[in-house]
């Protein structure tokens, strides 16, 4: 298993194809371990990981915690709702206090863009981004990529449609960077109030030619190898970004009819939790093309790979 060029995982923007390849290849091995009767390996024995979640999370935190335990790390959970953060402690002070307890790896989720990078600048710990604002959620994208590779063999040349609230989605941003790096073409689709407003994004450096967008979902999924539907948050209606769930479902929901123009073996993906009947119809979410539960399993494997490789990289440098 090779080490990574990156020291932390802030996001997939700028992460090399080689590093992503290494993570995915390692994740495939951990995926096999997860199928064994005894799923635990001693890779992170003696290391302590803190899960620093400033935003509510169930599945991502659980997935990380499980990955850490499968790797035999000592884990500590820190939730801002019952912490000193509530008492006005600054982010840096919180981190320094936790670090004083000799933490090796920090898995962090925060509403603010760039918090993982900020923490890395003020800490010696390895930082793994578990979601920062609407910026990036790299392990979610990696597990999406692992799922596509597992089912279709490769990402190279594949067409992936991401449908929904792109503008507020850290999952979409990480997938844009990660999947295009691995050779896929990404088509973004959503109502004009929920997609990035600036077409310059498509021309940005290495993204040029690899990303396009559509406001017609039928065109977006045409010949798609995979469709990632994003969760639509009800707050978007309150913020006047959308008129109704009903209209969204009628124009942007993934239905049997919409999928008729996709490839025969199209994969249906969703980062969860699903609003059934809104972004995905139930028969699609539970249908033969759905790989949503595979994504969840792959999430543990990918997070094991990330933690293992980052910790290994650090030990080699020490």
């Amino acid at each position, binding site marked *: 298993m090779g080490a990574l060029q990156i020291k932390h995982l802030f996001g997939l923007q700028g992460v090399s194809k080689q590093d992503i390849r290494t993570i995915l290849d390692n994740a495939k091995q951990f995926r096999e371990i997860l199928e064994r009767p005894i799923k635990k390996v001693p890779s992170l024995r003696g290391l302590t990981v803190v899960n620093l979640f400033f935003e509510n999370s169930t599945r991502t935190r659980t997935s990380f915690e499980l990955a850490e335990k499968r790797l035999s790390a000592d884990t500590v959970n820190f939730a801002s709702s019952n912490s000193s953060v509530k008492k006005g402690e600054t982010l840096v002070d919180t981190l320094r206090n936790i670090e004083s307890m000799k933490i090796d790896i920090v898995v962090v989720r925060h*509403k603010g*863009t*760039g918090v993982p990078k900020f923490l890395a600048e003020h800490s010696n710990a390895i930082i793994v981004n578990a979601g920062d604002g609407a910026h990036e959620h790299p392990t979610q994208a990696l597990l999406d990529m692992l799922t596509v590779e597992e089912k279709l063999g490769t990402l190279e040349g594949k067409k992936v449609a991401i449908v929904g609230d792109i*503008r507020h*989605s*850290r999952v979409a941003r990480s997938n844009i960077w990660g999947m295009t790096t691995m050779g896929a073409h990404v088509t973004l689709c959503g109502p004009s109030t929920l997609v990035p*407003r*600036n077409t310059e994004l498509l*021309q940005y450096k290495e993204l040029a030619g690899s990303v396009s967008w559509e406001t017609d979902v039928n065109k977006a999924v045409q010949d798609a190898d995979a469709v990632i539907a994003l969760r639509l948050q009800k707050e978007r209606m309150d913020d006047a970004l959308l008129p109704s769930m009903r209209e969204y479902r009628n124009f942007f929901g993934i239905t049997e009819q919409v999928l008729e123009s996709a490839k025969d073996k199209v994969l249906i993906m969703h980062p969860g939790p699903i609003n059934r009947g809104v972004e995905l119809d139930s028969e699609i979410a539970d249908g033969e093309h759905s790989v949503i539960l595979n994504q969840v399993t792959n999430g543990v494997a990918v997070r094991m790979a990330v933690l293992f490789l980052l910790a290994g990289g650090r030990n080699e440098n020490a």
Partner: protein
Amino acid sequence: MKTLNSAKGASRVLKNLKLWNKGEDFVDTDIRIDAEGKLVSKEEKDFKPDQEIDCNGALVLPALFGLGLDFMEPLRDDVYTFKNGLDAMRRGGFYGGLYESAANPIDDADKMVAMKLRFGNCGKNDGMDIKFLGAYSKGFGSDSLAEMLDLADAGAVGFGDGGASIPHSRFLRLAMEYGKMTGKRFFFQPMDKTLRHSGCVHEGAYSDMLGMKGIPRIAETIAAYTVLETARFLQVPVHFKQVTCGETLDLIRNARKQGIDVTCDVGLYHLLLDDSSLETLDSAFHLIPPLRSADDSEALWKGLEDGTVTAISMNLTPVLRQDTEVNFEDSIPGALSLEIALPAIWKKLCARVGVARALELLAFAPARLVGARLPENFENFVVIDPDKPSKVTEKVFAGHVCNSPFLGKELPSSVLGTYINGVWTE
């Protein structure tokens, strides 16, 4: 930074200097300074300096006038004080400035008098020309008119809003209608608060990439248009602070053609930086109005060249370290500027607009805008070596805060010293 104002200092001659002589012209000169930091005339034959310093052709320029100075005192003197501000002015070569503090609305005459007293009592400020903007609404941002007639009598040079977004159209009209009786200019930050929403960066490719909430250009242009239409209707002079995009400058050009009395400034950092700096995710680049795209920045430079832009503003906004040592979106926006403005912009500014226009933008026009005395007779001056780079360290800044996008960076030029109100500082 050393101030030669005590008998313990060394007397000196600064040799090989070039004194600005109007237009693009300079004449050779020396500067003689006694041990107390006072200038010594050439007629003083007995002067025997302790030191002779070769300044390698450094330039002697008239001192500058700063727009947009928020010294935070009195309500946030934990962050910054008048004393800090005056120290910063001396270090950067400013002899005067326009005070407007978001935390300290001067919305009645008593506050104006108290502010002037406070300024007058903070030490070595003799001759430092500080002007004050009055508030047009009570407490900034309210729907109640401030006592503008009283404020004008008490010395307000104009009326502003502390950097808040423009008010709703009815109150804007009423404020300008009432304030028109004073004949004073209204200063606005052209920003529509509903279009700004919770944005913290320029709405563009970088905000989209980083998932940060953007402030679109139309938040500025719509606000500017609203103000200009009201100004045209009421015939009230207006000034736009920190214009950030070419579209607003187009509105200003058109407004002037219609006879509207409108002036504007652009911020130091908006000329020198653009939103590509957001990629660093460094909260030092958190400014409001936000740093816009490279094309916007270039449009501002064009506005300097063609005369649309009246002045370059400093927009001094001190921020506590603890409020910058957080992630970008949670940080408090703002930057220090006075100490580093001239070495940061001088070379580029001269290359684009020439020496005379550069000094007009940094010194004469801002002073004229608020009725301050002009820096014509070299009573105050700044000595700059345009070709000697300088490093921006925490020590460069007065006070205990040091928020600046240029902290740790190298500037193309150096301020060798300033002579402000009879005190030589280097």
